[in-house]
């Protein structure tokens, strides 16, 4: 019984917005299954009372003053845009409302 099925991999691909080919799905599912078996070893560690570490170092309260700094020019901002129009980023039609 694999720890991850082809259908689950297809679902992950939708979440991650990657249009995987059937071939890739065929390949990826068993590979991910192997990797998940490896990483699943973390469950062997008894750590119920151990606090999780999200940051390497215990730093807190790093904030900046509420002051303005120079922006990019619109030309700089749009310099990498695949398409631009009216000083805006031109993107294909959006299907879903946010």
């Amino acid at each position: 019984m694999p720890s991850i099925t082809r259908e689950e991999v297809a679902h992950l691909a939708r979440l991650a917005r990657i249009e995987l080919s059937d071939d890739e799905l065929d390949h990826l599912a068993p590979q991910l299954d192997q990797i998940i078996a490896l990483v699943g070893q973390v469950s062997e560690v008894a750590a119920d009372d151990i606090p999780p570490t999200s940051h390497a170092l215990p730093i807190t309260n790093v904030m900046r003053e509420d002051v303005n700094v120079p922006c990019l020019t619109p030309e700089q901002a749009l310099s990498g845009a695949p398409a631009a129009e009216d000083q805006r980023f031109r993107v294909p039609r959006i299907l879903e409302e946010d």
Partner: protein
Amino acid sequence: MTAEVFAIEDALAQYDPVLGLEVHVELNTKSKMFCGCPTEFGAPPNTQTCPVCLGLPGALPVVNAKAVEAAIKIGLALNCEIAEWCRFARKNYFYPDMPKNFQTSQYDEPIAFNGWTEVVVDGETYRIEIERAHMEEDTGKSTHVGGATGRIHGASHSLVDYNRAGIPLIEIVTKTIEVAPDKAAAVAKAYVSMLRDLLLALDVSDVRMDQGSLRCDANVSLKPHGSTVLGTRTETKNVNSFRSVERAVTYEITRQAAVLASGGKVLQETRHWHEDTGVTTSGREKSDADDYRYFPEPDLVPVAPSREWVEELRATLPEAPSTRRVRLQEEWGFTDLEMRDVVNGNALELVVGTVELGVTPAAAKKWWLGELARAANESGVALGELGVGATEVAEVQKLVDSGALNDKLARQVFDGLVKGEGTPAQIIEARGLALVSDDSALIEAIDRAIAANPDVVEKVNSGKPAAAGALIGAVMKDLRGKGDAAKVRELLNAKLGI
């Protein structure tokens, strides 16, 4: 096509509405949540961006201290607990106006939580429990091109401006609100309106609903009377005026009631409110694609506001509305009923202003809830928009106190003020409202009254001095109400020897 809806009365006869409100507030900080770009509304597109708020590869966020301060102030004003330690989290989903395809937000560790506030609707005070207030960032703005009137459907492409991306937002989330069915929509409206006043008083936001700096999402579900099982809820977005809060909630209640009554199922979905047509339309159905995969934001370190800082901020808060009401009632010596009348009559601020100008609280209340409330009611405008302010009320009351006017004449002055006939002095002049206190004029009128009422004089003389009241009435009538009643009594008594 719009769905069939029930009349609100029919809907409420069968179902109890359950509400939840999520309000997003754009803060009025100079710079964005995580970078130094300005936050000015209406700037030319993409002129207020940098690598951070454009989500360019390599850029990193740094928290705006002022935004944290504002979040704490809002939390305190809503009687929330302030976290001793909290983190930002990434909310992962793809959308073209979101530069990083995750929103830096807070998840299970909001900066403020477990609060409450109160609103007053039709004389009833409603307590609204606050679940949380958390910090996050706004998205960019898309313009849809090629379709009908800028709608997303039918557009050929979209244009994105990232000026708004990264502007600090505070999201304020209520717990479920369950009130009498016929009050639900009004309470929702009152809550949003109260929040606006509060945020203005805190000076943390411009609260321009027309500019989107306060946006409301309304969660609505219905349950049959007597049921304890919550129904499926919808989340209605884009509810961006006080009036539409009430309208959208009402619409959702009637729509869902019609769906349920016909044996249908309410879908768990996002719905969109259309101000122009007054309906909500189906947006996106909730699905497993809404797995936001929240995790602690590794690019930001935890925020741990010291208790000293929190107390410093608490000390700067304006007085809470409910505390203030209690204080004013005590200062004014009003009964609970009187105070409620003032609050419900939307006269609280007007009475405060009038009292500040030296008028007694009783007199201020009398005018605002009496003559002026009547006039407002008749002309269908809000009390505050009558064109009569605290200054005018105080001026008129001063004339009454000095004896230049009596209450009856004062009412006529107010009538003139409402009708825009000028200042009180001009109205008194024009309408000839000055009180007659000239002795000779009064004595002439008294003589006429005595002559016309020999029977009354007879009664007084036969040992019934109380009968003289009728003569005073006659004198005042003769003077068309403009006589100084106290003076008339004094002169009449002298004449009759009583």
